[in-house]
């Protein structure tokens, strides 16, 4: 079951590569939140209720509900054109993301992953690099936040596969930090929308020597 969920997650990464509309990307992020809830639910079923509530909160409330609504608001408020505007064609994106998946499979075979379940490692690493790839290859500032969220999802999977967990308090701090940084980034997107006419990274090249 976990493997099916993880593979669905990996497929959703490829889908992000060809998603042309921003709302599609946001929907994929929401679906990823649900998948992560499923994975962590199966993983931690024997652990106490507090942990369960915490994970429910982190995946469903944050990743599936709060952040997508917030991002949709940001897009509506700034009248962002609903296309993702990648620098490179969709086909190339799919090829590159597939390459990333393949690469992470090879990497996890080369370094001795050992007791860490290989599937988790592969999906987590490919989510990390896909996120970075999305940040590099997209023009819009909002898509950068989405790339950052994909990276965060990868980190979440990686921390699930580590087996041992951080203390509750630390975990809460980490979740809150991530949530707040997304909020802060969103606020700055709004500011960028007010200051510049178009919200492209081309506007952000004035600081140089």
């Amino acid at each position, binding site marked *: 079951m976990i493997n099916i969920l993880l593979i669905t997650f990996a497929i959703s990464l490829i889908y992000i590569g060809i998603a042309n509309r921003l709302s599609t990307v946001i929907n994929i992020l929401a679906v990823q939140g649900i998948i992560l809830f499923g994975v962590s639910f199966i993983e931690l079923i024997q652990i106490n209720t507090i942990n369960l509530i915490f994970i429910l909160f982190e995946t469903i409330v944050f990743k599936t509900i709060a952040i997508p609504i917030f991002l949709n608001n940001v897009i509506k408020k700034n009248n962002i054109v609903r296309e993702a505007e990648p620098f490179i064609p969709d086909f190339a994106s799919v090829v590159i993301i597939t390459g990333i998946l393949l690469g992470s499979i090879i990497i996890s075979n080369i370094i001795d992953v050992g007791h860490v379940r290989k599937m988790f490692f592969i999906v987590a690493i490919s989510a990390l690099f896909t996120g*970075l790839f999305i940040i590099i290859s997209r023009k819009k500032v909002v898509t950068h936040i989405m790339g950052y969220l994909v990276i965060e999802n990868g980190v979440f999977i990686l921390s699930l596969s580590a087996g041992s967990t951080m203390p509750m308090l630390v975990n809460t701090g980490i979740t809150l*930090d991530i949530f707040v940084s997304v909020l802060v980034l969103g606020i700055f997107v709004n500011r960028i929308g007010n200051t510049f006419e178009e919200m492209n990274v081309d506007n952000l090249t004035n600081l140089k*020597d």
Partner: protein
Amino acid sequence: MLVYYLIISFLIGVATVFNRNQTFRIVLLALFMMVQTSITIYAYLHIGADDLVYFKYDALGVIFMAVLTLLSFTTIYHSFVYLRHRRDNSRSQSIFFAALIMLIVAMNCVYLASHIGVMWVFVELTTLSVAVLIYHERTSLALEATWKYVFVCSIGITITFIGIILLSFGMGETVQIDFSFKALQEQLLVVNSSWLKLAFLFIIVGFSTKMGLFPMHTAAIDAHTAAPPPISAFISTTLMNVGFVAIFRTYSLFAHTVIQPWMNQVLLWCGLISIIVSAAYLLKVKHLKRMSAYSSIEHMGLAAIGLASGGIGYFAAIFHMILHSFVKASAFYQIDQFHRNFGTYIISETGNYFNRNRAGGMVFLLVLVGIIAMPPSGLFITEFWIFKAMFASSHYIFLILALLFLSFCIYSLTKNFLYILFNQTKDLLPSEEKTVASETWSQYFLLALLFYFGINPPAQMIQLIEEAVKYLP
């Protein structure tokens, strides 16, 4: 004690947000500084004690806490000066000071954290609070700098978190892992070296966003350019100390494992490339604040090299960070005055500053002596020790390259500072307002500390630094 500190600071911060009265604002900040000073004194008197489960008053933390407290006084004073001249409305002043209080508290907690996860949380908190301060001037440049800073730091801190998870991979699933520094140090001894290397690389790359070390130094440079000068002083000193403390603690974690020689190589390369990068950019820099920022990168490179060289290098690296904090802070406070005098930061549009503002010009001259590590500057002693450590650990090629590129840095800094101070070939507009000499007193005080500590470092400080490096190989 720490819990009271956090609660009281939080209350003062909230009160600062809603307060619109200037007198009451000064009272609140004075109150905060009293709390900050008392926690520092308390920490010094209780070295080695744990507090609030995840914090510990250890020697390294207390040293940098003391530096932070000292610089908080001057930064708050210069922030008042800066805001008075900008004539900002009361609301934006309130937000400014509330963010400043949050930043100081977050940095304090990073210094004291004894748990790698807690440290992570507070490092991220410093990013978020300093973002508000960088964006204070509300210009499009400030917006760009803030966006880049928050984004790069968030990615960086995520990379660090991956490193921390990778550490736990190496230890196996079955054991319950304790992520406090003390327990981790013992647990790491049995971990496979390839996991350790991977984890170290991720953690060091992530924290280098904060320290301004080579792989991720760019964010800090842009932030310096756009931030208000008193805040640049903080970014360049205490916030870089945050990165240094994080890297130092990570280094001490790994120092007893098999990867220690490899780790030294990595840090040496990071340090050397930082120096090369700063030398290259300093040669063509046009903006005074960017110049100071690149000079900070150079000093961070030296500190990393000191850490990697071992022996007296550990001691020198910490001492270097402390003294660098004093000189760079006074430089940035003076840059604020400089900006009010000329209305620009571009070096080629200025000149003859020594005659226009004698007190401020004198500060720049002393800063120059301090920053290029010319005796009697305290940085001369620490750089001498760092090079001695490199010599002792037989990193001759690194030593030669570092000295070579350091001379480029010294040339560029001297050229630009002397241009600002003494160039009389241009007809400049008279300064818009009379600069007040009394605003430079705090800068002279910090510079005096720099020179005094170089000649006669206080025994308590030496003792603390020795305590901090005691367990390193």
